[in-house]
């Protein structure tokens, strides 16, 4: 109590100096919070973008299909899995897919294409595919009068093949049984534009794709959307136990490259912030040392009359820590509205920014405990760290030396 009183009054002794120190700490804290909020926010946006675009929170495959996709690594009896997933409380929806590389032809041109067979109804509730249609409308799985299925094609393919809505599209690929697969489809919709990630994709009704590739009712992938973003790993583990013969992976595994580069980038951000805080603290350290040196005689007297060395060191540490705490508290008051605005309004970028391979045109922050707490611990930690040498100096300084100075 006494130490607190002494430390507190000492802070107000050199008002201007303490104010300047507090201002640089407050500024450093707000800057840190803002930067953490931006980094967390842009990654959250990127994550929710690809989760909703196609990845989902969890995916199920046969064996190592995720790393080495081969047409024969397929999931048999997907309807059993669907029954399990539909029954789960945690799962919002899921969809079934098959994939095959193929060649697409029109009457005049050809182009490589990625064929994806999708469960049309389930895909619609699981991903944003329907919203990405730029021409035509979401297809159904019916065969037209001439016996053709509809297809939705990426804008890149439409451009390469010079075809549009209602035109015929010929696909050639290799079936699961090794046979040559080829068939004609009618373009029912065009997806995205020529820059979209699915510009070279051809979406077929699941049944059409299964027929085309001679896959019976098998699928390659089950993609699952959860109700709660944070439960991907936990739910994946639960499902893995239920489906021991299949590989269940959370998005962190599915998008491993992205996830790892995000982790590295976040660590880099923490280090970068650490350096900024360190630079702020070089100034603060100087001030702390100066204020201790100035009071050498005073500390000598305090020691002479019986203040224990450890108590003296504690007092000096307390002084800096208290000043830092006050500054951070003030910073918190300033940072909360800033982050609120940043999270709910944000600002548009003049040029789109690439976040882990996804282009972002709008930047928003993230409002979370981490965003406020991490810089807080960073600054308080540094405050304690830099006051230790000053404290030790005062603690070990002999009172006779101190009394002879000045």
């Amino acid at each position: 109590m006494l130490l607190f009183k002494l430390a507190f009054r000492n802070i107000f002794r050199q008002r201007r100096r303490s104010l300047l120190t507090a201002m640089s700490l407050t500024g450093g804290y707000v800057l840190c919070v803002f930067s953490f909020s931006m980094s967390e926010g842009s990654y959250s946006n990127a994550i929710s973008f690809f989760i909703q675009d196609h990845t989902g929170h969890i995916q199920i495959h046969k064996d190592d299909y995720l790393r080495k996709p081969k047409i024969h690594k397929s999931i048999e009896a997907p309807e059993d899995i669907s029954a399990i997933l539909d029954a789960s409380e945690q799962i919002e929806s899921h969809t079934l897919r098959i994939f095959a590389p193929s060649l697409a032809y029109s009457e005049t041109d050809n182009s490589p294409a990625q064929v994806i067979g999708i469960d049309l109804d389930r895909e619609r509730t699981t991903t944003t595919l329907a919203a990405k249609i730029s021409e035509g409308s979401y297809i159904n799985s019916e065969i037209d009068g001439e016996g053709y299925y509809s297809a939705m094609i990426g804008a890149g393919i439409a451009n390469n093949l010079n075809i549009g809505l209602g035109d015929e599209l010929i696909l050639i690929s290799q079936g699961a049984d090794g046979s040559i697969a080829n068939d004609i489809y009618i373009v029912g919709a065009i997806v995205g534009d020529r820059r979209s990630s699915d510009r070279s994709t051809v979406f077929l009704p699941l049944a059409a794709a299964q027929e085309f590739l001679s896959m019976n009712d098998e699928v390659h992938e089950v993609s699952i959307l959860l109700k709660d973003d944070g439960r991907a790993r936990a739910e994946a583990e639960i499902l893995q136990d239920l489906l021991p013969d299949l590989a269940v992976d959370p998005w962190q595994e599915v998008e491993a490259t992205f996830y790892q580069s995000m982790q590295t980038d976040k660590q880099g951000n923490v280090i970068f912030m650490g350096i900024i805080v360190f630079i702020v603290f070089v100034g603060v350290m100087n001030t702390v040392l100066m204020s201790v040196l100035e009071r050498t005689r005073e500390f000598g007297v305090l020691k002479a009359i019986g203040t224990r060395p450890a108590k003296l060191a504690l007092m000096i540490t307390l002084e800096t820590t208290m000043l830092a705490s006050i500054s951070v508290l003030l910073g918190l008051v300033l940072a909360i509205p800033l982050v609120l605005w940043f999270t709910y309004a944000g600002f548009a970028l003049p040029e789109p920014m690439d976040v882990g391979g996804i282009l972002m045109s709008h930047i928003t922050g993230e409002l979370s405990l981490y965003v406020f707490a991490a810089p807080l611990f960073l600054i308080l930690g540094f405050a304690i760290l830099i006051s230790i040498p000053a404290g030790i100096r005062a603690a070990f300084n002999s009172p006779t030396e101190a009394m002879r100075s000045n």
Partner: protein
Amino acid sequence: MSAVISTTDVCRFFGDDEETLVKAVDNVSIEIERGEFTALVGPSGSGKTTLLHLIGGLDNPTSGSVKLSGTNIAAMSGTALSDFRRDHIGFIFQAYNLIPVFSAEENIEYIMLLQGVDAVERKRRVSEILAQVGLEGLGDRRPNKLSGGQQQRVAIARAMVSRPEIILADEPTANLDSKNGIALLDLMKELNESHNMTFIFSTHDEKIMKRASRLIHMQDGKIEFDEKK
């Protein structure tokens, strides 16, 4: 009467080699009885401050022993020595004695807080001692709102309030004019007599020396002569 302080062949040398060696205190053996009012006198550099620091446990002797009420403090260090000073020795320095951010009362209270004296007792002792040093009503002033003489009175009050066996004062009047210096010394003498408290102080001032009951003259770190009145 038993000796409160006894030093035996105590030495304090500074510097390592022959040429720079300074024998600040050189083979000093003294005994000081309870209730004595002793002045340490001698020219500048004769070793008065160094000897006071050795007696007060602020500095460790190069050789010899310093006993306070039978405890050899030359062997103590760190926290133990710190606590010993807190409980057994009161200090008054030439200047800058007080904690500038504490009021007179808080300065006096500080040492009792270190000792763990309870709040009621602290309050009682603070007002009692403020009256004794003639500072009633000035307890809530900070040092910069007190005159030099008043500040030294607070320092005396702080030194006494912990009820130490001895009070060491290194040129307590040096920063005061002669009128205030004499008044301060009269106060010390009064407290010495009323409380039977042992005082040792150093001084250059002839008028101040006269008030001491014992004069220890130092020269080149040695005791030149020791006169009791």
